[in-house]
């Protein structure tokens, strides 16, 4: 009996909070708020906040065309795998002190799990056989490479800071990081973590593929790149994945740097998390979107491997010497 209840509880985690339903609603709202904010900053009215929902449902009602040169299974399954993988990552990220499954993976694992959605979109695009997807794939991959180095440095800096404070040397576990912050306040208050937090803020749009780091999906140049051949529901799932990715990365930021703000009540924590995600999205995605033009792919690479890596490196060195 208890097993059944536990199973139902975990199923609830997966399906409702912080799983699918939360991801779907929060991610889509986040995406809508982002679009609204960008429009505001560009002196526009902007779409309604529910616009991503409309887009998603509309795409569900469209015909799905499979190109003759595509491999059908990969083409259709890739979006679903990507979506499922993203939701699982979201499950692994603690919501302040509440963590459904966060005891099962640490930050390095998260780093690698984040590659699965990216791989799913890459393979899906490649499976369509479109030459535009070929170009998009190359750019997507270079963007991933660009973001990887600074992200690694940020994660190592956090691990080192928490680890040396807890006396274990290093600490990769997300739940330990959350527990540490719950006791000692947010990590962002530490001097050594400020450059890392800034670097992380700059990494978020790159990882999600948002403007100006969206060379991989440049709709005006390479016809949305990897998504060029997708239509209908699979495209909608990719758009949904993109929205959830924004949520995932911002909540990863919250888990890494803004922990300890929770109240202990799960429902309230969820709302606080969402609000923090909105603020982070506003700063790191919308604001950056509004003030920049799209970068070329080699500029993206240069930007991440010089400026952002530099910031993260400063943070790591500061953390190393215990500041």
């Amino acid at each position, binding site marked *: 009996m208890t097993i059944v209840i536990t199973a139902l509880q975990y199923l609830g985690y997966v399906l409702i909070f912080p799983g699918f339903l939360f991801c779907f609603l929060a991610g889509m709202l986040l995406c809508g708020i982002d679009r609204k904010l960008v429009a505001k900053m*560009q002196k526009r*009215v902007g779409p309604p906040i529910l616009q991503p929902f*409309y887009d998603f449902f*509309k795409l569900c*009602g469209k015909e799905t065309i499979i190109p003759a040169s595509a491999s059908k299974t990969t083409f259709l399954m890739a979006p679903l795998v990507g979506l499922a993988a993203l939701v699982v990552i979201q499950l692994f990220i603690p919501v302040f002190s509440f963590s459904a499954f966060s005891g099962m993976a640490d930050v390095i694992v998260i780093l690698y799990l984040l590659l699965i959605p990216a791989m799913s979109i890459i393979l899906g695009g490649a499976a369509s056989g479109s030459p535009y997807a070929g170009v998009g794939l190359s750019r997507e991959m270079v963007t991933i490479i660009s973001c990887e180095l600074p992200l690694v440095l940020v994660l190592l800096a956090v691990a080192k800071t928490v680890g040396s404070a807890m006396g274990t040397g290093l600490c990769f576990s997300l739940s330990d990081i959350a527990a540490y912050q719950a006791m000692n306040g947010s990590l962002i208050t530490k001097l050594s973590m400020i450059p890392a937090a800034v670097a992380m803020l700059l990494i978020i749009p790159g990882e999600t593929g948002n403007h100006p780091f969206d060379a991989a999906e*440049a*709709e005006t140049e390479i016809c949305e790149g990897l*998504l060029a*051949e997708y239509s209908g529901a699979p495209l909608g799932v990719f758009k949904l994945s993109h929205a959830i990715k924004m949520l995932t990365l911002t909540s990863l930021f919250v888990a890494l740097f803004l922990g300890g703000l929770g109240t202990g009540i799960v429902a309230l924590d969820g709302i606080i998390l969402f609000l923090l995600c909105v603020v982070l999205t506003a700063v790191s995605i919308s604001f950056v979107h509004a003030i920049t033009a799209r970068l070329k792919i080699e500029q993206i690479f240069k930007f991440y491997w010089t400026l952002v890596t530099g910031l993260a490196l400063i943070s790591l060195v500061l953390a190393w010497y215990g500041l």
Partner: protein
Amino acid sequence: MFKKLIQESMGKSPWLFHINAGSCNGCDIELVSVLTPRYDAERLGFKLAGSPRHADIVVVTGPVTKQSLPRVLRAISQVPEPRCIVTMGSCPQSGNVFRGSYSVAGPLSKYVHVDVDVAGCAPKPEAVIDGLALATQILKEKRGQMK
């Protein structure tokens, strides 16, 4: 209920795919100006899509030259149903000043069913918005007819 939701959404997020079939760029500029802060079609859900596979509404400008005709038809055929074809400006409707040229294959309505014509040379952005709104209504009807 889900069907209703889809149909409602269909009217709220039409994505455009713009085909320049030999246009002088006048209409193209006006179409882009629809998306500028002044007119901001995005608040109605309009968005320029990069690929015909993503589009709901195909906007054709230009007199449909012989070079572009197969590509135009190809791109239109790749738009998933339900779709709506809008001709923008006088050229695709009749050929306008290019009518009778050896290189013009238009008008477009000879080859595909055109849903909405937006006249003007080039049409005012408001007229484009009107035309797209009309196209969106047609789109919704078409969605309703789909099984």
